[in-house]
């Protein structure tokens, strides 16, 4: 029997679960937990400057490691500040355990100081959530939170712990074992055989990979499947890197900002094998007109995704790795010469156009220059906007977990704290965050945390002094009525970074921007690299929202 407080119990359980870094911000209702954490010699705390930053740092750690990571916030405003990061984790299926302090049990529901119903608020944005009512419950709830976050399709779990539960003394006879993921769903061999037969009989099949391939660690298997069956392979925003972009079978990213030829190839497919993706509207455009000639095989670990947007001819509820391992021996080795040469001809007629890619003073050129200065071990994150889509189009991703972006929620402010999380989890890597001036200002306070932690994070700020993607949409779809998308002031980001204690470089003033860039990227430690970008550069091609993928404009 060991006597401890609820807070000490939480810390012990987190230590046993393998948690080594927690990002957060303290406040009254979570002070018992912080007091207990101060006694841990195993877990390091990173003090963020805004709880959303802490949430994204935890996400960054989880995105590189694939394991659930933890953030802390106090009750009330602390907890509400976490909401965006939690919702973001939900939409991108990221395992996250958010622990919040709550007012004491007896005061819940009385509008006590800094009381919000964070449990109620996070019902629709978590995979599951808990309001803990006794220290005893923690023995079940904490392992359950990790188990749920990492099982099947990963996702965020919130645990709300009232202050008196944190302080409550309990006797613990034995600590529960660390949580493990639940058993995977059993594979339906009959359906799998049908899928294999459809692949073997198809003439113009396409493989469509999503984030589930990354979560399941199945990138190599997916590439093998593509090679074995001669399947041109497209990836969602979340799956970029699962097949190296220079692989001969890669047809790049599909959807709203995919290359013309990619969407045309899909148009002609007679079979689409969708693996760990969910027919998101940004990827498939008008769903009814997506792959009009194709039969669909859909493999997903989340049963509720099957038949949700598109009815599948064969729907397999399975973990992607399990399904692909069983599928591969049944798929004939085929060289589909005619189909592949047709794909090649579409590719040469309607290629992805990256104007200016050789000039580091243009958006595509800057992205290429960054990539040229780094190897595939570097991690790339982005914020949200034009710069995000340009990076998705132009950066040569070659491995899973090389790139992290806010896909489902599209959260400006994601990039820098997520990059910091990635650098905390894997300090040997260089982590580059491509950001826009709008997005950077959403979590710019984390520069203070970055300076303090000295992480190897490089921020490449593509500054067009506007909310570029909004400006683009107003120009294209709102009769050029540009409103509330151009900034009137122009903050000096170099001085801002320096003010926070971060080295900064302005590429605009460099005579040899390529060399300056390479040097900055290869010097350890944080750095902000500023580059002006022409506001009139738009992301092309573009499928207008609500249109079919073949109705692209530009590019």
């Amino acid at each position, binding site marked *: 029997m060991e006597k401890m407080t609820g807070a000490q119990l939480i810390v012990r359980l987190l230590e046993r679960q393998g948690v080594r870094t927690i990002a957060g911000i303290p406040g009254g209702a979570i002070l018992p937990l912080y007091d207990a954490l101060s006694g841990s010699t195993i877990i390091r705390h990173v003090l963020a400057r805004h709880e959303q930053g802490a949430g994204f740092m935890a996400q960054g750690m989880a995105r590189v490691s694939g394991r659930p990571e933890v953030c802390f916030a106090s009750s009330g405003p602390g907890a509400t500040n976490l909401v965006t990061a939690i919702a973001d984790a939900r939409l991108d299926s990221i395992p996250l355990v958010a622990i919040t302090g709550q007012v004491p049990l007896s005061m819940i529901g009385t509008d006590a100081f800094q009381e919000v119903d964070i*449990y*109620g608020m996070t*019902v*629709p944005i978590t*995979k*599951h*959530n808990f*309001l803990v009512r006794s220290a005893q419950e923690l023995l079940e709830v904490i392992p359950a939170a990790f188990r*749920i976050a990492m099982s099947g399709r990963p996702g965020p779990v919130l645990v709300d712990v009232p202050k008196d539960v944190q302080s409550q003394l309990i006797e613990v006879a034995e600590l529960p074992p660390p949580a493990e993921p639940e058993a995977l769903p059993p594979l339906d061999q009959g359906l799998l055989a049908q899928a294999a037969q459809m692949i073997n009989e198809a003439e113009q099949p396409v493989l469509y990979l999503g984030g589930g391939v990354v979560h399941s660690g199945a990138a190599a298997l997916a590439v093998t499947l593509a090679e074995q069956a001669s399947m041109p392979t497209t990836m969602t925003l979340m799956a970029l890197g699962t097949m190296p972009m220079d692989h001969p079978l890669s047809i790049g990213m599909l959807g709203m900002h995919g290359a013309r030829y990619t969407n045309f190839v899909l148009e002609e497919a007679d079979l689409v094998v969708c693996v760990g993706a969910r027919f998101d*509207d940004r990827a498939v455009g008008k769903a009814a007109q997506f792959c009009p000639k194709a039969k669909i095989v859909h493999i997903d670990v*989340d*049963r*509720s995704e*099957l*038949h*949700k947007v598109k009815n599948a001819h064969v729907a397999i509820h399975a973990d992607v790795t399990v399904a692909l391992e069983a599928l591969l021996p049944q798929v004939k080795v085929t060289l589909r010469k005619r189909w592949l040469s047709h794909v090649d001809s579409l590719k040469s007629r309607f290629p992805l156009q990256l104007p200016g890619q050789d000039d580091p003073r243009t958006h595509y050129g800057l992205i290429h220059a960054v990539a040229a200065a780094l190897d595939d071990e570097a991690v790339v994150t982005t914020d*949200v906007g034009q710069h995000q889509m340009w990076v998705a189009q132009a950066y040569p991703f070659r491995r899973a977990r090389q790139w992290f972006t806010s896909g489902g929620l*599209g959260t400006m402010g994601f990039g820098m704290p997520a990059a910091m999380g990635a650098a905390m989890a894997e300090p040997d890597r260089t982590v580059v965050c491509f950001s826009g001036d709008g997005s950077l200002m959403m979590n710019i306070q984390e520069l203070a945390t970055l300076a303090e932690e000295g992480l190897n994070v490089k921020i490449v700020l593509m500054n067009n002094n506007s909310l570029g*993607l909004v400006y683009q*949409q107003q120009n294209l*779809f709102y009769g050029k009525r540009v409103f509330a998308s151009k900034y009137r002031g122009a903050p000096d980001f170099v001085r801002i970074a320096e003010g926070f204690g971060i080295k900064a470089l302005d590429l605009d003033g460099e005579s040899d921007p390529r060399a300056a860039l390479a040097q900055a990227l290869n010097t350890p430690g944080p750095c902000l690299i500023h580059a002006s970008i022409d506001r009139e550069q738009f992301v092309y091609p573009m499928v207008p*929202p*609500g249109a079919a993928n073949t109705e692209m404009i530009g590019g």
Partner: protein
Amino acid sequence: MIEQVADPLPQQGYAKVVLELEVNNHPGVMSHICNLFARRAFNVEGILCMPVADGRRSRIWLLVFEDQRLEQMMRQVEKLEDVLAVRPHGAGHEVFERLEDFFH
């Protein structure tokens, strides 16, 4: 990043269906379930919930309109941690018919 909001499907003219849910019995379970139906613009026409067995579990009866999303909706409900089982029944199930008397 223009938002596309799906129009709620018209629910009139569809048959009703009764769903029987086996759930864990603790505060919050109901809000998880109701939230899900509300999000997808499913009007819950009738709802009934009582503890079963030793009180660790509850049975919830829901009366909803059958539409083409119901199958997928049920899968989403099944995905909830606290939902142990979902069984659909025809609209004629007596559970709500017997309750009619209390609503006149």
